[in-house]
């Protein structure tokens, strides 16, 4: 009973908290390895402290800019960028979700046969391994600047995220209901529609709204590589040291994200 030993110390010795990692050798190895890594890391990072010190003044200006954000002088740029970001978000979420539903069905082992399962899992793995910004760089090189590249990037990223989580939900569904539908002589489509779909619908709605939220956040950076959205405006504002405009854009992003999160909380509470 080693578990009890930790709580009943030998007589005459004070009680000590049981350590988080039980094996003493492993514990020391982890601590020493970590310390060695930290030393090596700090040795190789070059910090230009005088530059950092000079920057503190600009940092203060930026933080102060949040108290007086400037929405007006670049209002048309901010508005155009925001509309483009939102348009990209909505379009890519719709297309991404529409494509991920069949892929999720294919990636669920209890619905799809093995070859299809492997293909769909492969698609999911590729989509998840490539980051949005890298995909965006390649797509901008291929399709040119503009929101189309951003739209395709976000759709591609949505597929990996949504299909994986939805497939896991389909795999853990209640078999009994689905079997009852099958026993009534339903065709495959009817089986999916009446046996599977009602069980995963709440999760699908919740995930879709969550992904909408993520897509909006990601659409804010795609502009940095020329894929449309508010990112380009933000980048310009930083480059020109217009901190008050940058603060205005950041505040708008935060407000929209908060509103989306609040909305998704309400909708998810309603469907579940």
């Amino acid at each position, binding site marked *: 009973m080693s578990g009890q030993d930790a709580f009943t110390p030998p007589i005459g010795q004070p009680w000590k908290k049981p350590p988080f990692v039980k094996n003493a050798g492993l514990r020391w190895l982890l601590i020493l390895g970590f310390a060695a890594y930290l030393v090596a890391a700090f040795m190789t*990072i070059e910090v230009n402290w005088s530059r950092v010190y000079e920057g503190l003044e600009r940092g203060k200006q930026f933080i102060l800019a949040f108290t007086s954000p400037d929405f007006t002088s670049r209002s048309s740029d901010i508005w155009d960028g925001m509309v*483009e970001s939102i348009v990209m978000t909505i379009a890519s979420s719709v297309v991404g979700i529409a494509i991920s539903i069949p892929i999720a069905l294919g990636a669920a082992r209890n619905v799809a046969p093995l070859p299809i399962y492997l293909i769909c899992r492969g698609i999911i793995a590729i989509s998840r391994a490539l980051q949005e910004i890298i995909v965006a760089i390649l797509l901008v090189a291929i399709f040119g600047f503009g*929101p189309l590249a951003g739209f395709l990037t976000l759709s591609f990223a949505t597929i990996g995220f949504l299909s994986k989580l939805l497939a896991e939900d389909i795999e853990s569904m209640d078999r009994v209901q689905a079997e009852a539908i099958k026993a009534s002589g339903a065709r495959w489509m009817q089986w999916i529609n009446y046996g599977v779909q009602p069980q995963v619908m709440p999760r699908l709605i919740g995930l879709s709204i969550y992904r909408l939220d993520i897509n909006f956040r990601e659409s804010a950076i795609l502009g940095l590589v020329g894929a449309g959205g508010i990112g380009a405006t933000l980048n310009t504002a930083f480059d020109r040291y217009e901190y008050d405009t*940058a603060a205005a854009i950041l505040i708008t992003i*935060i407000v929209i994200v908060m509103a989306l999160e609040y909305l998704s909380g309400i909708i998810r509470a309603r469907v579940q």
Partner: protein
Amino acid sequence: MPVRESGSLKLWQRRTQRESLSHWALWLIGIAIFAYCWQQISEATTWFFVWDAPRITQDIWSRATPPKWEYITQLGKPIWDTLNIATLGTIIALIMAVPIAFLAARNTTPSLLLIRPIALLIIVSTRSINSLIWALLLIAIIGPGVFAGVIAIAIRSIGFCAKLLYEAIEEIDTTQVEAITATGASRWQIMAYGIVPQIMPAFAGIAVFRWDINIRESTVLGLVGAGGIGLQLSSSLNVLAWPQVSLILLVILAAVVISEWVSAKVRAAII
């Protein structure tokens, strides 16, 4: 159960007439919004480039293969930098996230009305802005380099870690805390012996999970000048050195897969 009468027969329906009408209306609105969005995108697109895309893809592919393998000797330092950005960023974030999480959790916050909203505001605002934007900002403030990347990753991770951590704190077993309180423990002792042991596994899990995400994010931070392998990627892209680009992409892919594997193993060992 919704039923439709046809003659003497009663037919089962999935929805009542009212429900199907509102479903139909929702679909109509949704499709209208999507059509509008698509129109906006297509207006801003130069379609000539899109029709030309297959040829361009082939062209880039033929330039990018085979990867320039000998270039890997120059990638050692950038990878080490990337690893440092992710790891040090995660550590700094965790150090800052712990107090914020305790201030934000309903059952440990000193003041529900004043301090909790401030902590939640910090969590939301750091979480909703991408690390690339933080990096952009920090480069404008403290100059380009690895240090800006570390701080950018740290700030971005605070919100994420603090959110998961405060949810874990809110879900703790109160009987253990009460037992510690009943022994006459002080506020700090309650925290150290009643709360911390309960959230330790969650904390370790969050740390490794975030580290994995941070490896991913730090590989691209260099695109805006914040150090790491992204710097090499951006300079190779700028001179159109496609064989180098393809090698860097392969290295990034390998780093992401390895970090995900490590994080999955560690989390499986903890939970």
